């Protein structure tokens, strides 16, 4: 547990340093996620045009100034800051990416890498770059990352396992859905690793290794800091694709029903409710306080 906080602390420190250094100003389409559609959609540049504007040279420049401290000048994960980190920075020369929408054992789509760069990996030292880098700068970084492993040239992205669009339309959250998820969590043996209560303490939890030889840190759902995100479809995506380079496998063949996939996600998230890191930090001065939400102070 202590190691996790170390990683988080480093991440925050790292992000703070970068802010102080004033690197990378959000540029041209920094407003892209504002949500409003001010221009007619047809008038905007196409995805192809945007990718055509990105450049490996710019990506390399950004990589060397922002990423190499952890991921290493050559991308091998041996940057000067790597020794003190847990989890370790990824070795980008392997071309092995954990957070994807593609089939187990295949390369991610460019959008998958864009997403990780934008949002970072909560609970690790990998910061969210969206506040610091424009979409265009991150596109250039993606192009540069693709040059670090031969796999991109030889294979290209793998077949898509999870359509991003389908993740945006979850079913209504009901107690029955969570009950179904609980049933499946047992039936599919999620508890073999993640434990009966989702604390990451199942019977297989301490036998497995990651591909880099480190002990696999089986996810504790009650901890509440999800590397892959806690938004709609994030857990769904993770158990469908698996996490390459870790013991977490793909369950895509095991859960044919769309509604069951949502049920598992909702059950896993329900294990976290009111019990995550945020909860502990917020509640710290008065541990004994009941779990019921406090009345809104503004209304009192």
């Amino acid at each position, binding site marked *: 547990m202590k190691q996790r906080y170390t990683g988080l602390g480093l991440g925050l420190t790292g992000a703070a340093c970068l802010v102080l250094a004033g690197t990378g100003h959000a540029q041209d389409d920094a407003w892209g996620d504002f949500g409003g559609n001010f221009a007619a959609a047809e008038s905007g540049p196409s995805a192809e045009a945007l990718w055509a504007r990105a450049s490996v040279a710019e990506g390399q420049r950004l990589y060397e100034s922002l990423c190499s401290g952890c991921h290493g000048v050559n991308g091998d994960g041996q940057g000067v800051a790597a020794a003190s980190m847990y989890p370790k920075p990824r070795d980008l020369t*392997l*071309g*092995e990416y954990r957070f994807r929408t593609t089939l*187990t*054992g295949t390369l991610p789509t460019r959008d998958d890498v864009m997403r990780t760069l934008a949002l970072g990996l909560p609970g690790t030292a990998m910061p969210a770059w969206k506040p610091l880098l424009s979409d265009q700068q991150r596109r250039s970084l993606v192009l540069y990352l693709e040059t670090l492993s031969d*796999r991109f040239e*030889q*294979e290209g992205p793998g077949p898509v396992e999870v359509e991003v669009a389908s993740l945006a339309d979850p079913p209504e959250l009901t107690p029955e859905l969570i009950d179904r998820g609980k049933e499946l969590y047992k*039936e*599919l*043996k999620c508890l*073999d*690793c993640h434990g009966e209560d989702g604390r990451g303490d199942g*019977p*297989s939890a301490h*036998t*497995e290794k990651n*591909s880099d*030889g480190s002990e696999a840190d089986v996810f504790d759902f009650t901890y509440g800091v999800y590397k892959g995100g806690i938004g709609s479809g994030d857990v769904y995506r993770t158990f469908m694709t*698996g996490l*390459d*380079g870790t*013991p*977490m*496998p*793909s*369950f895509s*063949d*095991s859960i044919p029903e769309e509604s069951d996939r949502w049920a598992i996600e909702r059950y896993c998230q329900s294990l976290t409710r009111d019990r995550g890191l945020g909860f502990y930090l917020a509640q710290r001065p008065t541990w004994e306080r009941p779990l019921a939400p406090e009345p809104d102070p503004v209304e009192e």
Partner: protein
Amino acid sequence: MTPAHLVRTLAVAATLCWSPAWAGYTVTAVSNPATVSGAVKYAGTAPKPGQLTITKDEDFCGKKSVYDESLLVSSGGGLANVIVYLDGVTAGKALSTPDAELSNTDCHYIPHVQALAVGTVLHVTNDDPILHNTHGRLPQSDVFNYALPRQGQDIPRKLTRAGLMKVGCDAGHTWMSAYIAVFGHPYYAVTDSNGQFTISDVPPGTYKVIYWHEKLGGKTGSVTVSGGTAAADLTYPAQ
């Protein structure tokens, strides 16, 4: 297998150029084809395969004995599960890609070692009523990692990358292991329980013969053929 052993194994594999180096292979009619066959032997006394220790799902996996298949020697000294291939064949017969299977049966893999061509559909199956987590990996990166929580499950996966895969079970069955060699050309074989192998339709020429065994490592030989048959025997020294 200890981590050090695995590292050594993978290092041997890497030195023997198990990489997608066969991208340039072309299919042509083979005139004056030859057959390379041979016997791979182990010079020492045939060891008695030890029983593996079951550390999880003892109720099911402990019912039948699971044996160590990492060094299987026949009464005549034949060494099973050696992967043999001809290096440097750039043109020849078509790749053969009938569907293949890797089965989780009684808490071990069947087969323990197999060699397949790129493009083959591998069926990863589970005969057991428990969770298996079949994780196939090339030295650098994962090829697949499937959960098989249901008995009778059958997951087809097309193999697109050449190389030597190590397969293990991440459902706590740390004793389970298998190897799958995937080739971009068709000139390979795996020795049978008597150590015998046959590679057919070889175009005339001189080739390096590569042998690889999970415990005894890599060896190289040489063979020159021009039609007919040629022998490529090998004896591993005792360990």
